[in-house]
């Protein structure tokens, strides 16, 4: 087989760093292969991608040792433009990759730069837009598109050059689960129909494995630690050891004491052979139970008949009724654009409802200003960089108190107390910029928490985070919730988060409440999952395949079991 990309004993160090980011990489990617590259944040997988598409060394300079050949030629002898004719890259940030004013122009961007004449451009744009099914959106601007559509535009924009390799950098990061699933399916179709070589970089293994891949490359601390077929990797303990989350059904099977082998075909739950395992899972089910949490019956926040539209024509929310009890940790879920963030903006007072009311502790909050509501209901935005306005951590945390004229003495006491809760006290005199993304997130939570709100709303608290950071952020929130009893509302499209960390999920679709139930019920209801663009959990399929009568109950109990395991520190300590 012809190798398109070949690393041999390749080491790379960025100019500004003292240690190499990649060590002794030996990797051969053949024409027509489909490869998944996984690894936690900071493992070097993005740098590996930069080497493949030419950003290293042409845009990010540094020292290289060893060889990297692209189509048999030394990568340094090729320019970044030559490499881009072979490798097309679809970036994680689809808004950043969308550089033109309309879909058609963005797809044509590479052709424009190649001085292709207009008539030929139009023809090729039309053809490639058809391949990714966006031909009806050619004259739309990016603000009119969903995340999934923007990603398709990015795909079309690199495929138009007739590249041989399609490189996807975290294609699932910004998509809701069902859209992500369709993206993976589309990538698979493209590979088959257009005969492309595909490289996907992801850390969401279960979702990325929705369609078969030939090999999985696992990277950790700059080295390739595993390069095998998916089945072999799933049977090993390499994933857990390297901070990658296993598919849930695999975790469940392992807990049930099953020894998974490659012969079981563990890549997909649908096609996995469970004949040796089903009885063990059923036995395991009998041993796990669930305590009832005693949540207070006192309602803290009530939304009544709420309707809202931005333009007085198309309603974004319609007749929403929600009651949140004191001390609950709940999730508001639904696909992108279902109205989740709008609901939060109404609760915080950024917009006023057309109809209906919002009650906090029984009294209507409509007369309260944004600032006054901010003292009772804190909102943590998705992007921590959008909230950081002071250079130092202490000042950033103190900001909300200072603007409210609290005495400096009291500020110091409250800020220090909050920073201790958030594990940031040792860093209090650091600049915000020295922190990691996860730590910044904690600073934003601290800056809300310090005002002692009754409710915290978090918008996509874990978006774009790998499993380690995801766990770090969520365990922190869980601990906070348990200790202080604060009410937490999370807006998310992360199904794992909802399943593992919340007591209740409110599903929004097309501006209405579709379901209000335990997460395990939501994710086992096929019809709801379909309508709300959620993805049913593989635990449900596992339960079905093991002939259980009440699959939802199994899901619920297993999640509870896993939570308590984690609390004991057995799993990830």
């Amino acid at each position, binding site marked *: 087989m012809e190798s398109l990309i070949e690393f041999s004993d390749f080491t790379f160090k960025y100019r500004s760093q003292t240690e190499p980011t990649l060590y002794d990489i030996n990797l051969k990617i053949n024409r027509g292969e489909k490869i998944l590259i996984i690894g936690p944040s900071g493992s070097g997988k993005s740098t590996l991608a930069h080497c493949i598409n030419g950003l290293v060394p042409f845009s990010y300079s540094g020292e290289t040792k060893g060889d990297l050949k692209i189509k048999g030629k030394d990568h340094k002898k090729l320019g970044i433009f030559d490499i881009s004719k072979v490798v097309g890259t679809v970036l994680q940030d689809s808004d950043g990759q969308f550089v033109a004013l309309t879909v058609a122009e963005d797809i044509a961007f590479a052709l424009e730069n190649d001085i292709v004449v207009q008539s030929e451009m139009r023809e090729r744009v039309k053809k490639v837009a058809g391949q990714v099914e966006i031909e009806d959106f050619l004259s739309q601007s990016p603000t009119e598109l969903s995340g999934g559509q923007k990603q398709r535009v990015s795909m079309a924009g690199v495929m138009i050059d007739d590249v041989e390799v399609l490189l996807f950098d975290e294609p699932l990061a910004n998509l809701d689960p069902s859209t992500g699933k369709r993206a993976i399916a589309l990538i698979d179709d493209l590979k088959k129909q257009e005969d492309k070589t595909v490289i996907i970089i992801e850390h969401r293994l279960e979702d990325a494995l929705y369609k078969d891949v030939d090999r999985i490359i696992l990277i950790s601390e700059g080295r390739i630690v595993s390069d095998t077929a998916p089945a072999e990797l799933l049977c090993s303990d390499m994933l857990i050891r390297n901070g990658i989350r296993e598919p849930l059904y695999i975790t469940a099977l392992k807990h049930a004491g099953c020894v998974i082998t490659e012969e079981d075909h563990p890549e997909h739950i649908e096609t996995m052979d469970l004949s040796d395992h089903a009885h063990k899972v059923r036995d395991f089910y009998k041993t796990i139970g669930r305590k009832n949490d005693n949540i207070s019956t006192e309602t803290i926040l009530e939304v009544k008949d709420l309707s809202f539209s931005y333009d007085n024509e198309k309603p974004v929310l319609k007749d929403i009724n929600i009651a949140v009890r004191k001390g609950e940790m709940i999730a508001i879920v639904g696909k992108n654009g279902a109205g989740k963030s709008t609901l939060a903006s109404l609760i915080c007072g950024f917009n006023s409802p057309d109809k209906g009311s919002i009650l906090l502790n029984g009294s209507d909050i409509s007369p309260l200003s944004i600032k006054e509501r901010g003292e009772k209901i804190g909102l943590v935005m998705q992007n921590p960089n959008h909230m950081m306005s002071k250079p130092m951590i202490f000042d950033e945390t103190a900001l909300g108190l200072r603007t409210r004229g609290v005495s400096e003495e009291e500020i110091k006491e409250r800020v220090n107390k909050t920073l201790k809760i958030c594990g940031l006290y040792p860093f209090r005199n650091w600049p915000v*910029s020295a922190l990691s993304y996860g730590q910044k997130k904690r600073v934003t939570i601290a800056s809300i928490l310090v005002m002692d709100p009754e409710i915290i709303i978090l918008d996509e608290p874990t978006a774009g985070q790998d499993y380690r950071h995801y766990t770090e952020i969520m365990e922190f929130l869980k601990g906070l919730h348990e200790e202080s009893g604060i009410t937490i509302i999370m807006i998310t499209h992360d199904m794992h988060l909802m399943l593992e960390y919340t007591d209740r999920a409110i599903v929004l679709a097309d501006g209405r409440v579709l379901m209000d139930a335990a997460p395990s019920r939501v994710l086992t209801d096929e019809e709801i999952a379909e309508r709300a663009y959620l993805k049913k959990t593989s635990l449900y399929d596992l339960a079905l395949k093991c002939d259980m009568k009440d699959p939802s109950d199994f899901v619920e109990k297993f999640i509870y079991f896993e939570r308590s395991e984690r609390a004991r520190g057995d799993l990830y300590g």
Partner: protein
Amino acid sequence: MKNRFGIREVVAAGIGTALFVALTEIQIPLGFVPNTALQPRVALLGFMAAVFGPVVGGIVGFIGHALGDALFYGGVWWSWVIPEAVVGIVIGIFAKKFAIKEGDFNKKAIITFNVVQVIAHAAAWIVVAPVLDILIYAEPADKVFVQGFFAFLGNIIITGILGSLLCYGYSMIGARSNSLKKED
């Protein structure tokens, strides 16, 4: 590298212009002179020019002012667009001295930045803008010089405070934090 107009500079000019236009919405009323306001977008221009150099500064000033005024106020007053570009270019010429990206925006650089910005704004609003107003609109000299002087005053205040803070803040982000120690 700063004098080259490569992709990064094209993008910086584009994003800088977008920010400049969006910031047209924010005005800080001076209070003591009616109908005048400080324009934070001018501080942004100073910051962009100081980080990315004269070409980016000139483009952000020129396109930003023309586009911002056209989109929000329905007019393009070339006699005030051109001075805005002058500010961006003059501050940008000294970009290397500020070394903002390298994290070296120290006291000396802050002083240089402010000396340069005062000169740039003086050239733009006390010389170029009034002269153009006289040439194009035949407006009375004393009126346009007084007007220019107030623009100069407002712009050096906002650039001096907000512009310096932006440069300083951005240089802090770039700075590495080797010397940081955890405290108990």
